[in-house]
């Protein structure tokens, strides 16, 4: 089910888990706001990870924690420090892309 959500003056489409369903609606302001909602205070390193995730998504590369750990951007430990608890879920939510389907 897709719902409309108001965020920093923008209307975005999200699913029941809060993941954006239309990446074209995303911008850095929205990313910042989604981060705040998830109790993340964005730093340049956070943005580096988000940019990497978005690039992989645009290239249709399936994402996984292992993949990000081997990206050269962060190792898994750092990824957890930046986005605690469920980093892939939180980072993809902020990046405005669907929840990765690494879990089947």
């Amino acid at each position, binding site marked *: 089910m897709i719902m409309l959500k108001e965020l920093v003056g923008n209307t975005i489409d999200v699913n029941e888990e809060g993941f954006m369903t239309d990446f074209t609606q995303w911008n850095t302001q929205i990313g910042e706001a989604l981060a705040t909602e998830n109790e993340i205070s964005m730093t340049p390193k956070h943005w580096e990870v988000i940019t990497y995730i978005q690039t992989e998504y645009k290239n249709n590369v*399936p994402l*996984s*924690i*292992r*993949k990000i750990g*081997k990206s050269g951007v962060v190792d*898994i*430990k750092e*990824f*957890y420090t930046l986005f*605690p*608890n*469920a980093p892939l*879920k939180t980072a993809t939510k902020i990046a405005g892309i669907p929840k990765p*389907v*690494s*879990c*089947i």
Partner: protein
Amino acid sequence: MFKVIYTDNQYHLHRSQTALHLYCVICNSISKESKSNTNPKTSKTITMKHKKNILILGAGTAGTIMANQLVKEVDPHTWNITIADATNTHYYQPGFLFLPFGIYDEEDVKKPIRSFLPDEVKFIQDKASEIKSEEQQVLFESGKTIHYDVLIIATGSTIDSSEIEGMNGPEWRKSIFDFYTFEGAKALREKLATWEGGKLVVHITEMPIKCPVAPLEFSFLADDYFGKKGMRDKVDITYVTPLSGAFTKPRATQKLEYLLKEKNINIVSDFAIESVDNENKSIKDYSGKEVPFDLLVTVPTNKGSQVIEQSGLGDELNFVPTDKGTLQSKVSANIFVLGDATNIPTSKAGSVTHFQAEILFENVLRFIRKEELLPEFDGHANCFIETGKGKALLIDFNYDHEPVEGTFPIAGIGPLRLLKESRMNHWGKLAFRWVYWNMLLKARPIPFVKARMSLAGKNF
């Protein structure tokens, strides 16, 4: 250059080719060199018509079904079908779940590979060491090289406990076990038989894993097993998963979490393991969470075959990038991938392989006939989930539809119930072993069960 190899009264021509010319008539260019390479026994038949080769790597569920299907349709005057595997034993892998609890014996889960292959298919017991896709050749450990015109990769997935620090340390097979291998399941049976209780942790390292519901089933069966032994009160069972819940699909998760609660099994979710502490017997995750154990039953990282890595054909887990609809590899047009070896976003399970095989079989024939491939595979999976005490659940889903309640395989009738515990489902699971050995591997149609998922009889 031609190399002529004499095998089973047939000559197979092997030639280096840099491009795919599936239909090129190599026989037109048979060199004098090869003709002069005569064998007295067969020299009369050396007016040889060169045959083309379909090579299948891996004689597990996927490879065996494929060999049985292809042999019925491809022209034996034009094509040789060869299948290679490192071992000569076929394991009924779903049976590994039952082995630790003594429900199945060793003999229930292993049979000779050869007895499931048609006589017309050549079986080679040898381990593939490299796939050279440019040259259309596979190299084997024995030093043998086989040329192919069509390659079907069915090399499956295996566990790799060395991926996590400490997992295969001093406690491996003492208090840390797997049940995804025949040896692991047997060792665990010995352990469970004498174990006096404590903290049992059932754990998934990372996704994807083969048969993603197996660790849940293991937890349910453990509850039943210790209950029957009259020692359930001495065993604390915890299910630890990297996922956010018991399963990935919302409605099944809800149902399965209810069952875990009912059976007094704790769940720890979003647990991304970093290391196993052998000394203090605990698993630790990257966020600092720690779960202590007396007995750890883990599903280590699942990876594709080494030959995929050695050939540079896989992703970071050695799974082969594959088109999710046609099952053609993204490596080369004449390489197809079947079963657990693919990277496609569906479960790695026998049922999935069975459904894929029907689609792939059709596409291999189309490829041979130079027709367009059909993107027909819909991600269909159908899994029994043993819940203990003689009951089971059944789930049926695909790329687009999550498991829901309903009836299967006949809409409105069943006799199996979807996403509901029933005794009939349990009998279905036990009967499936017979179906597996006698129908599925031999590619005999299973009544009412279709490759593409049916929406009928389901309550969406």
